[in-house]
């Protein structure tokens, strides 16, 4: 491979391409990238919710005293703070999921594509309904 004077690796007929390395912090470079990473991180809080639910089930398994201890643990200010943060992230998951899910399905009624805002609104309506039903069960209805 002949090299003319100047930068090494350069030949007359094959220029040395420059490959810009992608930084580990690429996701901080743009607000849209950061929003995306925050959305992806919601999965950690989803997992956290499942873990606390498993702990609650374990408490139920061990009897009334364990259950009462678990309720007390939930009242710990650090746990409440963690749950408050988790709640924000979990709601962010819901909001972003509803915004994006209709794009994955081209829903067609009688040949015409259903407008996306309609699908998103239907999702929110269903969310309210389902949340209401769950709350009704848990509040002793």
């Amino acid at each position, binding site marked *: 491979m002949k090299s003319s004077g100047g930068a090494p690796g350069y030949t007359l007929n094959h220029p040395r391409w420059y490959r810009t390395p992608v930084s580990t912090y690429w996701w901080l470079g743009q607000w849209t990238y950061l929003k995306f990473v925050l959305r992806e991180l919601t999965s950690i809080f989803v997992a956290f919710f*499942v873990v606390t*639910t498993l702990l609650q089930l374990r408490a*139920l398994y061990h009897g009334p005293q364990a259950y*009462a201890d678990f309720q007390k643990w939930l009242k710990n200010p650090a746990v409440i703070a963690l749950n408050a943060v988790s709640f924000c992230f979990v709601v962010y*998951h819901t909001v972003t999921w509803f915004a994006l899910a209709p794009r994955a399905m081209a829903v067609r009624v009688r040949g015409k594509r259903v407008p996306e805002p309609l699908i998103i609104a239907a999702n929110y309506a269903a969310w309210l309904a389902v949340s209401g039903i769950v709350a009704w069960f848990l509040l002793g209805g």
Partner: protein
Amino acid sequence: MAGKESGLRMEPFLWTLFSAGGVLAAFLIPVHLFLWGLAFPLGWLKAPGYESATALLAHPIVRIYLLLLCSLPLFHWAHRFRYTLYDGLQIKHLNEVINFCCYGGALLGTAVAGYLLWRIP
């Protein structure tokens, strides 16, 4: 590498689990987390006592509901977190370890949920 071809054939299935978990998480987790994590501990609403909780769990449907609520969102986390590690920390070369920990974790959580929901009196 033995995993490559069969691993790629698993991708559609894993993505389906991710989507199902995402739907359940989107619809159900906010209300559950709000009630158990904030409303009940802070006293805004009255928490179900041991008897009420056990009464709810008497219905097999509730146990199946809880199994799905615990299992599928964990698979949602597993799939999403796996790709977050690939792209965020650029450690895709560790994909075998990552896959094992993520999907293994989800399977473990599912097993624990299944065991507890089977055995709770």
